[in-house]
């Protein structure tokens, strides 16, 4: 069954859209990530214009993260004080990201920057995650019990000025690294159409030493608020949010996420992280190849004005 997308101005199979939404939702429920880093590339590779794909997926990420954020909130797993700092700097970063997005689109370099961004970001994060997961797997093979340890020695980050006390996370740290993380994720997230949860979580754990029971909830709350703001900014700035496309993805995504979360309980933490690392690396490699290999067609076209 074909459905016409009014902003993308093309008709796509409805089951295909709900299907990839569901598949990505399953993976995001399984690994506890938003899934934007999978959905945006999938849409781009299946012919949706890059700008529409990025802008519409931000809407889908809001939906995908909302139910998770709510359940963490009910369990008291969100440090709202910390999240507020991350959200405000994230929105500021998103302003920069959306503005850069328009400039790049006009210059014809949007696809290039998105590809390079995915290769660098996903490649880097993927390799780090894989290293960590392999180490944990090897240790558990040898019979050593790996405890989830939180390194409590202080690094240079904790010596920065403007310290603020975050009661819920039991942290007394400078706001500068918090704002920097928010700014970076806001910028990258709005430019690439990803929530940035897989960058946020390690950053909170390893850089800020946020306790484990606060990390996921705080990250999800930040993703919801920042991506909501980004969706509105994309709608105003580039007018490329396709609400119908986003809705089809949301429906598949929220349903898929529940099954993914159920399936995730049968796998061990380090196995999950290892699989996620492989997935992230696969996307990075796919984008890397598209940059390096000779394209099928060196010519491409784009519309630079509205129909008249």
């Amino acid at each position, binding site marked *: 069954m074909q459905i016409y997308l*009014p902003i993308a101005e*093309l008709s796509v199979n409805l089951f295909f859209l709900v299907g990839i939404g569901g598949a990505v939702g399953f993976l995001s429920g399984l690994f506890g990530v938003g899934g934007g880093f999978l959905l945006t590339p999938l849409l781009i590779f299946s012919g949706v214009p890059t700008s529409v794909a990025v802008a519409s997926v931000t809407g889908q990420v809001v939906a995908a993260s909302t139910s998770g954020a709510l359940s963490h909130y009910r369990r008291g797993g969100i440090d709202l004080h910390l999240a507020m700092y991350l959200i405000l700097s994230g929105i500021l970063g998103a302003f920069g990201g959306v503005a850069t997005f328009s400039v790049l689109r006009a210059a014809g370099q949007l696809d290039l920057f998105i590809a390079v961004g995915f290769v660098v970001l996903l490649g880097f994060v993927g390799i780090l995650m894989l290293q960590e997961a392999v180490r944990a797997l090897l240790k558990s093979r040898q019979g050593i019990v790996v405890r989830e340890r939180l390194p409590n020695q202080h690094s240079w980050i904790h010596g920065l000025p403007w310290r603020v006390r975050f009661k819920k996370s039991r942290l007394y740290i400078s706001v500068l690294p918090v704002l920097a993380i928010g700014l970076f994720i806001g910028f990258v997230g709005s430019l690439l159409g990803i929530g940035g949860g897989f960058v946020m979580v390690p950053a909170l754990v390893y850089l800020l030493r946020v306790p484990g029971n606060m990390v996921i909830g705080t990250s999800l709350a930040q993703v919801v608020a920042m991506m909501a703001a980004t*969706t509105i*900014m994309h709608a105003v700035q580039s007018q490329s949010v396709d609400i119908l496309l986003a809705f089809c993805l949301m429906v598949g995504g929220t349903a898929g996420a529940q099954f993914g979360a159920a399936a995730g309980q049968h796998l061990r933490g380090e196995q999950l992280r290892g699989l996620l690392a492989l997935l992230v690396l696969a996307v990075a490699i796919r984008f890397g190849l598209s940059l390096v290999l*000779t394209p099928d067609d060196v010519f491409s076209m784009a519309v630079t004005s509205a129909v008249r």
Partner: protein
Amino acid sequence: MNRILALLFIVLVSAVPAGAAARLVSGVSNDTIQITSSFDGERLTFYGTIAPEAGSEQRYVEGPFDVVIVVLGPTQDRVAREKTHNFGIWLNTEQVEFKRFPSYFHVLSSRRLLEIADINLLNRNFILPEAHAMMPNIAGFMKTLVFGRELIRLMSEQGLFGVQENGVRFHSDTFYSAQLTLPSSAPPGPYIAQTYVFQNGEIIARKSEGFAVRKIAFERFLAQSATQYPLLYGIACVVLALFTGWLGGVLFRR
């Protein structure tokens, strides 16, 4: 006085060569094509008959005729870009912008175009796709030529440009019909179908019809809100997302 009359007579006779006093009576099956949520392209039928000029003494026209129908979509500014290999990666380096380039262009004809008329005549009337890419451009002649040809190739691959040299069928000496399937990627806007009647390599009659491709109902509402009230539209998207996410959590709560 006599000389003036004689001159007038000569002018009239030369302006209307024998057998060319024809007019075209034509029509198109749809005057609006509505884009609904299940829009997956639409088939259009063009038909017409070639008749003697109104008020002339002729009872019938003599063939053979050739008919060419040019369907032209709304115009947009379009760029063609070329990737080159730099520092190990492929990136867009050169681009040429074509102002007011048709977003849709299809030619249907009853015979091979170059057999119907001279290439210059076809180009002058924008009957060949290439004519649209040959407009003067600040990029320079050679670059315009290369990028224009590539742009037309890309448009053809997308089904937005095309030439069907057997697209017009004659059912009698003077009655023809032609069918065109408008793809779902055809952009909404005003379309023009120009019909030319050729005889002996000259245009003896022409007529144009307009039709519109329009989003209707819900699709129209969405597209209009997105452009006219972008802020409200964005907020609506977010509310929808929050609601869907919340509902998903409630429905599947274990």
